[in-house]
């Protein structure tokens, strides 16, 4: 049996008991949430306080558990895409991507270049929009109201693009196994270009409000720091890990969707505090604009073309083919009545979502429905580092800390 250091372990909400019962007179227990505007959803925290200083904090999650993984076992592979939107509802396209990549690995399907580039473009826009919600709500939690208004202005523009391609602002389900759900609309490229052209100056605008703002710096610099060894111990990924100086980004280190062909940097910082996580995310937004521009150029050069694989066992044939080809009709009928059947086995596909490493593990029993789907949800796992970061901090900083971890409770609880 390995020695376990219980002082490092993540406390459960039951482990924090009434200090008076334990004969302690200097501390008190405060319940924060689940209905609290600063907990970014339905996160409950049991906080043990000595005056204003946090002695211990235990996250209590599960209020939003809807059994998404279980539900996916009762849907065909293609139907289950819609469930992935509802985990991390601030980055549905990233969830779609992780899931469809896992199924495509199971099936061994090759995706043509045009839909792959469109996927890259859209997930990078998704990263910007997710980071904008993070930035806006983070600033709002620290009483910088105006950043919220600026951030949501551009986010709305990005959501308009998502609505344009998929018909939905948030629950997009736009990536399907085999490619995209439908082709990109005609005015897609000019609309995206208009956004990408203004975005760098808008990021400058946000930064002018915060980066050198003395109040912002005092609230965030040196607060809630974590070092790289502890971050890896607690499984922290994404901007939180990169803020500690670890240049680990799946897009760079284990590329998918052809990310190795794009030119971009992985921003890192060194202190691992809230301010550094802020700097990393701001720099990431600029890199995302950069990647999106490259993808945009490729799409423009490619012109119109296919939006899904020509493998008819996975992707449905176009309507024009169904009217005169018996085989297409059969494929169409089989796909919509039964779905496709990946071979037996299991596969894992990991992507860099805005929050960290989002991995989908799928077990196939050879049938048309997934036997088991598991999502390595970055919000869920990142949350474990919160007690480590919060110990010794002020109660008011705890609010800043939660915001800097950027948890989405839909993904935490699934």
């Amino acid at each position: 049996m390995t020695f376990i250091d219980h002082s490092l372990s993540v406390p459960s909400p039951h482990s924090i008991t009434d200090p008076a019962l334990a004969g302690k007179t200097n501390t008190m227990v405060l319940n924060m949430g689940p209905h609290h505007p600063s907990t970014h959803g339905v996160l409950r925290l049991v906080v043990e306080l000595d005056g204003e200083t946090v002695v211990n904090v235990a996250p209590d999650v599960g209020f939003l558990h809807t059994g998404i993984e279980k539900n996916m076992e009762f849907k065909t592979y293609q139907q289950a895409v819609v469930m992935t939107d509802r985990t991390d509802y601030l980055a549905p396209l990233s969830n779609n991507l992780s899931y469809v990549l896992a199924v495509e690995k199971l099936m061994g399907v090759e995706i043509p270049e045009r839909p792959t580039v469109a996927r890259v473009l859209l997930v990078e826009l998704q990263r910007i929009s997710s980071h904008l919600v993070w930035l806006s709500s983070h600033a709002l939690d620290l009483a910088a109201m105006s950043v919220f208004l600026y951030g949501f202005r551009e986010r709305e523009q990005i959501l308009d693009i998502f609505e344009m391609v998929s018909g939905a602002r948030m629950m997009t389900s736009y990536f399907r196994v085999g490619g995209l759900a439908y082709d990109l609309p005609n005015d897609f490229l000019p609309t995206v270009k208009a956004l990408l052209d203004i975005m760098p100056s808008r990021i400058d605008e946000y930064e002018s409000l915060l980066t050198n703002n003395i109040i912002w710096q005092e609230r965030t610099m040196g607060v809630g720091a974590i070092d790289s060894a502890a971050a890896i111990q607690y499984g922290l990924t994404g901007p939180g890990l990169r803020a500690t100086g670890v240049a680990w980004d799946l897009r760079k280190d284990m590329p998918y969707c052809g990310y190795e062909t794009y030119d971009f940097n992985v921003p890192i910082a060194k202190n691992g505090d809230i301010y550094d996580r802020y700097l990393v995310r701001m720099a990431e937004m600029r890199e995302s604009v950069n990647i999106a521009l490259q993808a945009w150029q490729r799409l423009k050069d490619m012109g119109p073309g296919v939006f899904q694989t020509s493998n008819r066992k996975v992707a449905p044939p176009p309507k024009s083919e169904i009217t005169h080809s018996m085989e297409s009709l059969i494929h169409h009928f089989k796909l919509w009545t039964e779905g496709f059947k990946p071979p037996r086995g299991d596969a894992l596909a990991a992507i860099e979502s805005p929050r960290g490493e989002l991995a989908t593990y799928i077990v196939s029993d050879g049938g048309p429905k997934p036997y088991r789907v598991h999502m390595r949800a970055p919000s869920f796992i990142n949350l474990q580092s919160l007690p480590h970061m919060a110990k010794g901090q002020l109660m008011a900083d705890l609010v800043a800390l939660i915001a800097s971890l950027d948890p989405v409770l839909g993904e935490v609880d699934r």
Partner: protein
Amino acid sequence: MDNATVIERLQAEFGDKIGPVSSMLSGEATINVPREQIVAVAQFLRDDSALAYNFLENLCGVDYLGRQPRFEVVYHLLSHANRHRVCLKVGITEKDIHVPTLTGLWQTANYQEREAYDMFGIIFDGHPALERILMPDDWSGFPQRKDVPLGYEEVAFSNTEAQISARKPFAEE
């Protein structure tokens, strides 16, 4: 780092104490490990300077109802230095549903093991606080097991409290 090297190193270290090697469709080396060896194997993979699987990426349970052993715990380890992933699988039976915890090696196993316990009832021996995490504390049963139905609550087309509660799952008690 490639799959063959990892498997070679593991077999040199553990010999026939570790089980057969298979491959996932996604191309990762998958090693079946008896549960007595899982902590030692994981620690070897983590601490060996050439292998350096320093990150526990994923841990989850799977229920293969009707197969022996019925349950499986799947671990994915990631090496930041080598940019390589390896998968370990531990099979456990329903009668003796215990597996040693990995929280001694990685604190991140804490929540993931709690989730596997919550959903499948897999008991991780030595875990500091093996409690339900996503389901309510007073929930009975393990919802992601294959012999648990998806379940639903009927939609009540009524405003009358008595009629609604008569249809609730707890009404039979």
